[in-house]
């Protein structure tokens, strides 16, 4: 790879600013997904209460406050 590979035994891929936006976007999308499962009452998903009720038992058994 780079010319410094001989003095540096390990190359770390995450050590660059290049990953900043992909990481932030990933965290945002996954947090939204977890929110839709655990808390959304139709305000974000715009499905009314359908998704909320569909995943009702999952919420209780994952330990999230439900009602």
């Amino acid at each position: 790879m780079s010319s410094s590979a001989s003095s540096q035994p390990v190359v770390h891929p995450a050590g660059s600013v290049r990953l900043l936006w992909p990481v932030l976007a990933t965290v945002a999308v996954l947090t939204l997904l977890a929110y839709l499962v655990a808390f959304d009452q139709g305000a974000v998903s715009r499905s009314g209460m359908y998704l909320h009720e569909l995943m009702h038992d999952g919420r209780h058994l994952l330990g999230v406050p439900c009602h």
Partner: protein
Amino acid sequence: MPLNTTTTPPFVAVLVRGLLAGLIAGLLAGTFAYVAGEPHVEAAIAIEEAATHAEPAAGAHDHEDALVGRTGQRGGLFLATGLFGAAMGGLLATAYVLLSRRRRGDDDGRSGLLLAGAALLGAVIVPFLKYPANPPAVGDPATINQRTVTYLLMVVLGLVAVWAGSLGYRSVGAQAPTWLRATAAVGGFLLVTAVSYVVMPSFQEVPADFPATLLWSFRLASLGTQVVLWTGIGLLFAALMHHERRRRAGTALPST
């Protein structure tokens, strides 16, 4: 050329493995919850409905709503745990990549296992001991927003407690004996946990006539669901990363 330079996979490769590990672990957790938890949910709903019929004005969370029937909600359990697991697996993979900056070498998924253990302790066990899971019929609908916010805050504080523990472990120095480093870790963790338990508000909303054994069984099943989820994420992610590293090492050095 050192082997390590070619065996560190890019972000997307790690993320895909985290999502896959999370999805599978989520479905496993859903299976556990279905077997171990659903009977208790059903029993609690029966109690809730009996209370609602006796006192129609109570108007709690309406489980008789035709929007999604009970069969749909039992099936939706797998959707919920699968999606939630995928999200958690993806977040774990992201943390794994961010922490790989600090790693000295090829750890073969060890830090993935440590991260899953840290998440189980900080984001599940610490919040659970303060705000244990509640079945239907337990909990005052009037305080749901307050309980949601304090629960999320407790998850954050639990993760801070784990972080304080790791900070304590490292602050003592690598020359210190293991027992001293472990003591510093436990001390940092317990300090943050104890302070947040004292500071955060408590909620006593279990109805006086709710069966104690049912509450205990439900909470055990709920905790078990999260334990299955995070154990599964950690083990599957480590296995997938191990496989990925071997594959990359194999293509880099075909002679072996």
